[in-house]
């Protein structure tokens, strides 16, 4: 059984869904609710991403709590802002374990920690994201002013994943706004360990909205960030499953089914 990371530490698990098969054995591990949600997607690629991510989440968490993946039950904590049951996902009895799941394109990332944790990954959109500058905190938006359009896209995406990681960590989500606090610190700040994994590494963190925040190195064409609740000067990361990139160049073929 894997130990839950101690304070100030987080485990990170990457999955490239282009490298996995989601067949009957994997689908059998999902709950009825997850099957219903998967069936509600209009496009096969979205269904596949959702099912692969949730199979992986169950298998990863299973290793920490010694319960079979299919026996895990999830609940939603209340949102700390409005009390609605759409806050952080959690296991019913806690197990002293916190987790966060994000997926975009072919990338799935799961963070596990002994304190509240939030992770986000986003594939670089094909269109312009500069319109989101209007949603940014004023201090963060200042960093984008001198930049050309390409560099501003990078900055906006970096801002987005960092802000969303914080709001997933706090449990508020983006429904209450995403620009209430700055998250960029220095836009050229340090990032975490190399994507292929490797030894645990201490990564300098920025404080934001009661969280400690770092950018995660992400696969080509993606940006990612991780936030831990509380204030620490650095987060000790262990990449438990590296990104393989084997399927990242596979063209997606969406079809209505």
């Amino acid at each position: 059984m894997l130990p839950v990371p101690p304070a100030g530490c987080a485990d990170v698990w990457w999955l490239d869904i282009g490298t996995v098969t989601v067949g009957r054995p994997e689908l059998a591990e999902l709950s009825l609710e997850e099957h219903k949600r998967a069936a509600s997607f209009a496009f096969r690629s979205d269904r596949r991403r959702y099912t692969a991510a949730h199979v992986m989440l169950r298998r990863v968490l299973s290793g920490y709590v010694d319960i079979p993946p299919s026996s895990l039950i999830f609940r939603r904590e209340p949102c700390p802002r409005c009390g609605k049951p759409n806050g952080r996902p959690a296991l019913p009895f806690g197990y002293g374990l916190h987790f966060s799941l994000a997926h975009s394109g072919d990338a799935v990332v799961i963070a596990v920690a002994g304190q509240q944790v939030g992770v986000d990954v986003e594939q670089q959109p094909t269109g312009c994201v500069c319109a989101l500058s209007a949603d940014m905190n004023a201090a963060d938006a200042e960093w984008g002013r001198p930049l050309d359009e390409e560099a501003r896209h990078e900055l906006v995406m970096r801002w987005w994943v960092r802000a969303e990681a914080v709001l997933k960590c706090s449990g508020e989500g983006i429904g209450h706004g995403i620009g209430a606090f700055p998250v960029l610190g220095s836009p050229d700040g340090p990032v975490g360990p190399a994507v292929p994994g490797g030894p645990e590494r201490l990564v300098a963190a920025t404080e934001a909205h009661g969280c400690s925040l770092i950018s995660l190195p992400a696969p080509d064409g993606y940006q990612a960030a991780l936030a831990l609740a509380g204030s620490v000067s650095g987060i000790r990361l262990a990449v438990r499953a590296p990104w393989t990139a084997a399927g990242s160049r596979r063209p997606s073929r969406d079809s209505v089914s």
Partner: protein
Amino acid sequence: MTGPGPGAQAGVGDVAGELRRLLAATTGRPELAATTLDTALFGGGVGLDSLTGTLLLRQVRQRFGVDVAAEDLNLDALATLGTLSAFVCDRVVSDQIVSDRSVNGGA
């Protein structure tokens, strides 16, 4: 949710067409240009995530001048393409009426 009046029916179709175009452009997925009115936008359906959803709403605000997130606190308007189209059309028509009234001296 209150539906648009009879005179706004053609407008809903126009808004839906424009929203389909914005959906396809925002996500980089041309197949979304064929999204039907009863298709969910989030949590299934076309599978918008928080980023593409926020981008879409930002572009709706730029294109139609309607701030959906600010005006519809329960976000019921975001259920499907049809509900979003009706909401935007309703607000655009309301604004037009207010605008016409102010032009006509509040008649």
